[in-house]
């Protein structure tokens, strides 16, 4: 009997002492934060993760925000968030705006981590050139993130260091739009300095990519001379070219000379955005549908030209086919195409009264689509023609809405006269949980 008690107490003691070890468990597919960026391999993985972040918001939410809100695309599905966007009656908890906002800041946190930890790495297998490249990409991605936030939501809170704990992010108030754009500019300058340039890369940031985004930034800030300057730098790079016919750039195998930045997808990394555009008879949900007015325009040879290949179907069943890898789901996200740089420069030149040069750039885009030269004469006519051209050329990309807001034409063109609605609402959850917002959303929300 005594032995029994002895064995029992012995086993109890043994169990107690080995408890701590027994209770320590680590996941097999996650990495403790402390060792997330420690060497060449983990640094590479971290920057890839930041690109994945850009993919995640450009594969759906962000292009949706730039299209269904304007006049080329209408709601045709069942999900309320798209109806709200189509009607420009967007509540602060709208799923799509929240997803985009969240996705962008998640990406910025990835970029911030790279910017914070990669410079200190001493791994000999990470050469200085690659280190610069990784850092340059992180600066570019952060610039893109804040740019996309600014044009959607206005001036935002600037997070420039990775989040280690929640109390550490306290005290960051909203910046103005100008301050936010200044941050974008700073990051783009740093990115351009650090990034490499080669003749073929289009799916990762390069010097030209930073310049292209900078041209767009200056356009948004109405800094016409700089917009023209940086657009020219990209247009003059022989790496890029307007491809013909128009549909070449959205036809497999993609990564055409058209693209300045085109995020690629693969069999293991899918982009199912097509699903929102195709009808259920083709396996899609058909939530986003080309509007009747857009269909009429794009089918008009004098306006759409070969861009009529953006749509398919007949009668009541016309659908957009920019994203068309049905089932395979490998459509790229088109972030910056060379056509945009032409139109940026056209607009910048028109604003500087260089109307002939402006018309030349506009006609370059038109002629690629098989459409005759513009008939616009005055500055106002040219600017209007550029606006129209943007609307057709980038109908299903994240452009139309942002262009109309940028040029303050959303009231006239879309009938959305309440300018408060030209900005998206900050997520309701943030307004509730972030003391630095003081409970304030954008005006009107």
């Amino acid at each position, binding site marked *: 009997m005594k032995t029994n008690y002895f064995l029992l107490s012995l086993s109890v003691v043994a169990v107690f002492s080995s408890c701590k070890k027994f209770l320590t468990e680590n996941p097999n597919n996650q990495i403790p934060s402390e060792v997330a960026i420690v060497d060449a391999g983990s640094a590479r993985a971290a920057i890839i993760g930041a*690109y994945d972040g850009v993919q995640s918001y450009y594969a759906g939410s962000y292009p949706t925000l730039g299209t269904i809100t304007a006049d080329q695309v209408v709601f*045709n599905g069942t999900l309320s968030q798209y109806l709200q966007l189509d*009607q420009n*009656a967007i509540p*602060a908890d709208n799923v799509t705006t929240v997803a985009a906002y969240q996705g962008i800041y998640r990406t910025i946190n990835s970029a911030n981590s790279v910017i914070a930890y990669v410079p200190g790495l001493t791994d000999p297998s990470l050469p200085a050139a690659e280190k610069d490249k990784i850092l340059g990409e992180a600066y570019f991605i952060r610039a893109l993130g804040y740019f996309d936030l600014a044009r959607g939501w206005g001036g935002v809170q600037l997070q420039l260091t990775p989040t280690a704990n929640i109390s550490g*992010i306290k005290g960051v108030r909203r910046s103005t739009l100008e301050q936010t754009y200044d941050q974008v500019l700073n990051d783009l300058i740093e990115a351009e300095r650090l990034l490499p340039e080669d003749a073929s890369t289009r799916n990762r940031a390069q010097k030209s990519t930073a310049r292209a985004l900078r041209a767009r930034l200056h356009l948004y800030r109405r800094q016409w001379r700089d917009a023209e300057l940086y657009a020219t730098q990209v247009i003059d790079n022989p790496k890029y070219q307007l491809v013909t016919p128009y549909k070449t750039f959205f036809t497999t195998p993609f990564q055409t000379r058209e693209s300045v930045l085109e995020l690629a997808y693969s069999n293991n990394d899918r982009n199912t955005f097509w699903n929102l555009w195709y009808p*259920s*008879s083709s396996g899609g949900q058909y939530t986003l549908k080309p509007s009747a007015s857009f269909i009429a325009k794009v089918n008009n040879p004098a306006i759409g030209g070969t861009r009529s290949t953006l749509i398919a179907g007949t009668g009541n069943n016309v659908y957009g086919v920019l994203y068309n890898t049905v089932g395979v789901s490998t459509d790229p996200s088109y972030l910056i195409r060379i056509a945009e740089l032409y139109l940026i420069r056209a607009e910048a030149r028109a604003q500087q009264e260089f109307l002939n040069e402006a018309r030349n750039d506009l006609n370059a885009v038109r002629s690629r689509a098989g459409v005759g030269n513009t008939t616009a004469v005055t500055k106002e006519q040219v600017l209007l023609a550029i606006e129209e051209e943007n609307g057709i050329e980038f109908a299903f990309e994240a452009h139309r809405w942002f262009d109309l807001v940028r040029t303050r034409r959303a009231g006239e063109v879309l009938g959305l006269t309440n300018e408060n609605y030209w900005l998206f609402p900050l997520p309701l959850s943030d307004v509730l949980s972030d003391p630095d917002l003081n409970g304030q959303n954008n005006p009107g929300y």
Partner: protein
Amino acid sequence: MRRQFMSVLLLVLTGLAAQLHAQLPARTVSGIITQAETNTPVEGATISAGRNQTVSRKDGSFQIEVAGNTHTLTITHSSFTLQEVKLSSASSYNVTLQSASKQLDDVIVTGYSTQNKRFIAGSIASISADDIKNIPAAGFNQLLQGKAAGVQVTANSGVPGGGVTFRVRGNNSINASADPLYIIDGVIVSNTDLIRTSLGNQQQSNPLADINPADIQSIQILKDANATAIYGSQGANGVVIVTTKRGRQNSAGKVSLHVSQGWSDAPKKFKLVTGPENGLLVNESRINTAIDQGIDPSTITLPYNPDTLQTYDRISGLFRTARTQNYELGLQGGSERSTYYASFSYLKQEGIVRPSNFERFATRLNYDNQINRILKAGTSVNISRTYRNVSVNDNSPTGVINSAIFPRSFLPIYNANGTYARYGSFDNHIALIENLDNNAVGWRTIGNVFAEIALLKELKFRTSYSLDYNSMYENNYANTLISAGIASNGSATSNETKNTVFTADQVLTYIKNIGRRHSVNALIGNSINTVLFQNTNATGTGFPSNSIKAISAAANRSGSSSRSLAKLVSFFAKGSYTFDNKYTFDGSIRADASSRFGVNKRWGYFPSGGFTWRLSQEDFIQRLDFFDDLKIRGSIGLSGTQNGIDAYAAPGLWSTGYNYLDQPGTAPAQLANPDLTWETTRQVDIGTEFTILNKRLTVTLDYYNKYTYDLLLNVPVPYRSGFTTYLQNFGAVRNKGWELSLHTNNISTADFSWTTDFNISWNTNRIEKLASDITLGASGRNTSILREGHPVNSFYLYKQLYVDPQTGNAVYEDLNKDGIITAADRQIVGNANPNYYGGLNNTLNYKNFELNFFFFFTQGNKILNMQNFFLVHGGTQANIGFLPIQLERWQRPGDITDIPRLTTYSGNPAENGGAANNYGGNVANLSSRYLEDASFIRLRNVSLSYQFPSQVINRLRLSSLRAYVQVTNLFTISKYSGLDPEVSSQSGNQNTAGYDWATVPQPRTIQVGLNVSF
């Protein structure tokens, strides 16, 4: 509804008072003693009448002299409970004995021990096998609906083997699990749903449907802190202890067979407008929109000519008369040293909405052996295989029900060339029914081996090792005839998911009576529990032919895997001391350490204490001569929760799989919380149990107050952090309420008896502390909210006040009185929790017939009717038809209705009483007009059975033969306009109860069956 219950109660009580008796002369009475369960004669029962005694013969018969002043016969037998029979002028009495496991002073199973129910200070509900027999539901948890006070059970849908919501005394948790702990024969059984196929937001399956309810002997539900604290960290949501059948020592082998067949249908089906009505509504919406836009309506072209439209019926193809087959074989017996129970069963249940199916093959072996005087060993093993044919519903436009109810009714089902027609986002329901191929095969092994050593007479050591191994193998193939497979040219997914729970318990028990007045029951023990979850997944797209479904044949293939392991180490002790059979003091403590928590705060300590006073043992109560039994009890204690959070919730983590350009990527995924620790529930319970009126009425009444604090809460954090939530111990929830159970023997004569069980529970839930509002539900529509000061499962909507009879536009409550309708005007307009719920069960026996009817009721809970949300859209949904109530829309000035004027106008979305907010605008149809009262009372079960008389049985050489017919869900009384007020289609998240969203209703089933034993 309240009045109905009162009248039922009154009826029951009047029946009781009607029994009186008078003095009679001395005489001889005779009779037959039978066993209630099998109706077979009982030999060797002792019959006492005053001083006289006799013993029943082999055929159960007896004769006894009775003195004039003797009014009762007392019948005793070691295997049965004591039975008293009131003597009347009759000379013959047929007495049925209840087997010993069915009474108030039973010994019942509690945490790690058994206790005499008389002395228990905890609040424990006991349910016997008889209470749940034969109802055609696959999971025993579903069968407990309405059977026990304080236990709220909701079948989330009518899909066979589908999910069940089970709450003991309300929702304690917000992000941690609110499910109780299930223990079957000492094995901690996982209730983790392994089905990975996305079936919408509903809980996909009921993992407890792996167990055949016919194997169950009894179920105890531990509700209060005193009862649950011994399970420490896992007990806060209540504990359900299931004991399966075992053989009895020295009993002859018995074979029992049960065969049943059932047929089910939908008591109510969807109704849609006709084709012409649909055309009319769309036209009207178009005209109104033009008027709102300032366009002359005569200038617009109307889309349809209603007179030419046909009507296509999709609903009849959706439902079917579904068949249920059930076959069970049980073997039971025992020798002097060993006992056994073995069973084999097969159940096949078809869903009333095609094509879902459920099949279960289950087998069990329980074996015990007294190896020598001090050592006993045994095992319980359950092995089952389930097969489910599953299909998606609720928010998926390619779900079977959605594809049938959403397309406009004038659109043909087939194209002119005979192929399936599809519209908008929706698939074709016939295509789905004929081609859906989603199979889930589950293998479940629940096994336990134990040994018990009697170290001393009063000191026992028990060691027990348990395994719950659950695997699910899913193979889904979407062929090119359904929407999901069209684009990809065939798409297949395969998932192998395994959940392995291992538990080792060591318990030392000391039970001793010291003298006549002291008794002690104590134990100490330790337990180690590990939960390993593994999943491997493969997908393939692009198939050469629809007849080839193997992923290896696909053109594009990919895969992924996941794994998590959580561990728990526990030490516990419990003591109970009873003095003089009157006072019992209980105390227990448990210390738990979990690998899920932060290194700083891994250990949690959960003490509890309770007190019982058996007042009926006191002279002053006995002198009242009113109570047959009376006790009061009280308890207080702490229990904890850790389930439902991730196995690696505490450390800061970067996740993998954020890949780009086919290179591996990582990204920050979780913030570290080294202080993460237990969610704790403090519960106070005060209760009384008494029996009066000569044991005709037994009452149990409880009041409880549960306060759960340090909630494991996903606290929303600013998105600029790069994260969305941070798991913290923050917040508190309170549940308090009353529970009342009554058991009455209304009539008890030799030929006829009538018993009633009634229970009712009131629970009030309130979030006491929360970081900020959390909105969720309905696929991002955020129609549910968690808000401090309100109950969980509150609905967050715009409150429609009326439809302006002049303009036909909806007017909403302008909460902040700023003259416009914005998000600030959304408010809580009700919740999905009932005010009260309960069950009423009646059993009537007349000779060999037994009639049983059981009502379940729930009152005050709301349900959001998502069919109405979508199908009463005023024209804003271009591809969706209408429900008939859309026809009640406002049409001309003076119309009084709740359904506003049809329009798709979107100008000025903030105007209250403006056209934009009728169906769109800021309100976007999130209107209280789709929130309905889901109170109901349902005849859950009515059955009539016939026990064949002994002459027939003997001739057939059987020991028992019983036939029955039964109807489940015969009728439901409810104001709800949808198909079934009980469903909960968003049950995948416990904070979004109360949604009906293309959900399969509870079937109405008629079933016939036969029980034979020999």
